[in-house]
């Protein structure tokens, strides 16, 4: 009886396996890339809010410091959202009749909270603390993007809050913009460039990349 499969079958099967593996890898890669697109991360997409609050106007226009509203950013894990009372410090005097502030006035009258939509969110197994980042000289914009230019608020492009992005800084804090003095403090007081600075920084980095630093 003749051979059922010609010798070339071997090659075809091998090629098919290789192609299958390639397709699988491609699928994984595509999934990985797609997952990081703004379509999924919602970076750069403004959220609908009960009040169309403009950071651009308040920060760039009026020069209000971030910490005027996000009061606990230096003291607590949570940066804090301003109570209605903070809005009313000005808006009881200016734009008192503006239609777009109706929700704020209603909240001040009734004592009911304004239900803001969350813009940035970390998974609950990440124990992020704002205060230590701010105290160590990390600017708000490093993670949140250029909020001072946002007429409405969105996730600061290009930052989708992946662990990789946290680690980029935790592994190489010196590469990220911050005041020199803060960097010196980070490395236990050795000013940059001095002997010992690199070693001290390396020790600090070991600590920063410890699992329990962010997860527990």
């Amino acid at each position, binding site marked *: 009886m003749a051979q059922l499969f010609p010798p070339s079958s071997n090659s075809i099967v091998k090629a098919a396996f290789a192609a299958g593996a390639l397709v699988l890898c491609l699928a994984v890669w595509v999934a990985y890339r797609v997952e990081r697109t703004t379509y999924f991360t919602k970076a750069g997409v403004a959220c609908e809010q009960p009040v169309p609050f403009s950071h651009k106007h308040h920060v760039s226009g009026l020069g209000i410091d971030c910490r005027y509203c996000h009061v606990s950013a230096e003291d607590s894990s*949570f940066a804090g959202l301003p109570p209605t009372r903070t809005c009313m410090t000005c808006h009881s005097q200016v734009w008192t009749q503006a239609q777009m502030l109706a929700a704020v006035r209603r909240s001040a009258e009734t004592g009911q909270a304004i239900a803001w939509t969350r813009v940035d969110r970390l998974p609950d197994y990440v124990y992020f603390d704002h205060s230590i980042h701010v105290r160590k000289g990390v600017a708000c914009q490093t993670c949140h993007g250029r909020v001072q230019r946002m007429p409405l608020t969105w996730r600061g492009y290009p930052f989708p809050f992946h662990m990789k992005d946290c680690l980029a800084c935790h592994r190489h804090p010196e590469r990220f913009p911050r005041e020199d003095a803060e960097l010196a403090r980070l490395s236990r007081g050795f000013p940059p460039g001095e002997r010992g600075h690199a070693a001290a920084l390396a020790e600090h980095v070991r600590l920063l990349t410890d*699992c329990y630093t962010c*997860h*527990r």
Partner: protein
Amino acid sequence: MSGQLHGGDSFRRFGRRLQGLTGREFWRSLDELAGSPEFLEALHREFPTHSGYWDAAFSRRDFLRLMGASLALGGLAACGKPAGRILPYAEDPEGMTQGAPLYFSTTLPRAGFARGAVVKSAMGRPVKVEGNPRHPASLGGTDVFMQADILGLYDPDRSQTVLEQGRISTWGAYRAALSRALEAEAAARGAGLRLLTGSVTSPFLGQAIAEVLRRYPQARWHRFEPVSRETVYAGHALAFGRRLDRRFDLSQADVVVGLDCDLFFEEPGSLVYARQFAGRRKPQERMLRAYAAEPSPTLFGSRADHRLPAAASLLPALAYSLARRCGLPVPAVDTPQSCEPWLSSAAADLRRCRGRGLLVAGSLQPPQVHALAAWLNEALGNAERAVIYLEPPEASDSAAPLSELVEEASQGRVQTLLVLDANPVYGLPAADAAAALGKIPFAAHLGLYQDETARLCRWHVPRAHALESWGDALAFDGTASLLQPLIAPLYNGRTDFEFLGPAIGRLDASHDELRRFWSGRGLSAQDAWDDALRRGVVAATAFPAQAPSARRERLEKLPPPEAAAAELEAVLRPDLRLWDGRYANSGWLQEFPDPVTRLTWDNAAWLAPSTARRLGVENEDVLEISAGGRAVQAPVWIVPGQAPGVVGLTMGGGRSAGGRVAHGSGYWGESLRPASEARLLGPVQARKTEASLRLAGVQGHQLMEGRPLVRFATLSHYRKDPLFAKGERPGPTETLYGPLPQGGYAWGMSIDLNACVACGACVVACFAENNSPVVGKEEVLREREMHWIRIDRYYAGSPDAPAILSQPVPCMHCEDAPCELVCPVGATVHSDEGLNEMVYNRCVGTRYCSNNCPYKVRRFNFFDFADRQEEAYKLMRNPDVSVRSRGVMEKCTYCVQRIQEARLAADKQNRLIGDGDIQTACQQACPAQAIVFGDKADPRSRVAKLKASPLDYGLLDDLGTRPRTTYLARVDDPNPSLPEGA
């Protein structure tokens, strides 16, 4: 106990045994002692009870169906995330930083007596109880009940609505009905009005009740407290002619003789006594010697240098004999010959330590024994030093007993009854309060649960939890402290005062009334009030010490005790996990292993090995115990050290209306209690039944194969060989790991076995801090309990009167950790600071780490044990710790969330973490300060100093794991003149 047998040379002997010689020293259970085949088999099974679990017929079809369903449900779960909302305050509260916890002082009473607490509030939700270091009854320590109060607060089984005859009603309707009932009472000057409470120390509530009694002169106040101090007061009335309470100062005592007195559990000052005791058990300093004679092992007895198992009915005779030996003119009584060494040694020490000794009797003993103890303490000059007398802090001291209430009610003379948090239907069925309640037209009940008594009352009002209430309470020394609410009542609860309000015509909120009440008592200024709230104590309110003198002529005429004749007697004592049953619906406490029996979920009838043999029963056989025409069926647990001829019964089991968790756990020991409220049940009959009940004991779990784990010597041996605790074989020095990083912190822990009283506060505190799940009795039977710290208990010596040793075991955070080597996915890794870390998101659940852990401290989530559905529990959880899901290994993290908190605080101030900045949850809870955590690399730190002690040893350190958690070996101080075996 025998000094010789398990003196310090036990380790040498252990070493020999490890080399193949025999000679068993320490044992954990009777099975182990006997070396039974079942035990050996269990020891050597790789997966103790897990295998065979899936042997049940499980067809391919079932498998496919389940998998299909999981896939479908998995798909549903993936349908998009709901948009999160942030709700800021409209008006932010003063002094609050969003996201940062706040701490409030308050008071958590047990059986009326205050223990100060500092409660952590995470954004308005109370999540953790700690002791208040400023409060005289806490000194910073807590017990299991204080820890479990958090779960009690959120308990979804708590009563949530006002009920009239079982139908939902309203608070307004109750008040209107009460007002109508009171109008009728007013005409009769309150002849039909009765109040029933537990022990009340609250001056505020006491005054409200006094006001009721003033308005209705014929009304009466009754008290029913299942574990009352009545015998103490009555005993002192005998001795001094005045009803007095007493407290102790163990720091002033060189010898303490306890007659069935659990100083570390039952006494209202238990936390303080544990602290004082631990302070006097340092072998480098002058040690306190403890004697205990008791029917069942207690926490105090387990720590005594000489423990005599003795029937409760024999103790009066022992007290007389002690008194006579100490020179008091009391009649001679017969005592068994077996008690002679203990008696002569205790009496000799009491005589030797005049003015620095103490004889204490437990509340289970009759007043006569308390009178004798008071007299003896006075004669030996111990009064006003180690024992201090004071007016009873209880406002309810003048209240009438329950029996009178029942009698009057059954005669139809009670029209209106207000029950404040008392449960006589469950606590004393012999009094037949159930029938009496049926004859009362208006009976109203205030309680946390719709319990047995509530169901028989016409009205039931949900009670506000202590963490939801304004109020006050007195501590064991009379110090007043305030209760302030941490949260608005979750389930519409009302405070005791609000419940009574209509009866005294005051309907203000408790806060305003309490403020007004204390204004008249030195807290009129706002500052003073704020200060009392902040500190958690009202300054300088401790009761002055009394100096009563014993009335010799009357004491000399006291009739001597009758000889104990009963072949079998029973005692009823508060359960070490559930107290009198009021904590029975707490899963944390149900699953907390009893420190003596190591049983969870059920209480058992404790029998001595010899008694069990005589009755022909074994562990888990059900015994029918009857006395005075009442009977109860209880499973047997053979307890080494239990007195022969005594059945040890505990309270708190067999609740019929205690909630879903309490339901079906344990037997109803209270049903044997006579109407006289005595807890010594006298002669009982016991009959073996055919039934048996599986008990979820954890004693055999996590065994470590008889290695020298708990190290222990007598004081004299320690003086000869201070390094006795060091292992004979040093661990190997070669390692598979690279060198350890130098510099930085090196976290370590030291656990002092001399201080530990095995109360278990650490176990429950760990549960509360780390969001540990409760698994239930079935899963405990499969060895799946989730405690990150356990308290192992060892015995040494004969099973009839063994020495009892306890050892808390958390993760050792080995420097060369065997678990880390075998994890295929790097889910358990080592930090530079020495923490053995568990990364939940990497864990795939191979359980190799647990198999390779010599200490057996890793716990696996076989199911999704955490209850994620119950809304109330979502509020309860510690926001700083992950809630673990199914398929994930977990273990002690050294409370890394607290380390991080301290690190961030220090970093922000650009300083190093100071010694004592970090307290782990177990350390903070420990009333005896047995656990110390800190930076072992800093030679000035407390933990480094303790680790430098000659008593320091590592568990299984010969394996080369280099554990970061080490122990201080226990040194006992038995009387050297006592012959062996006594």
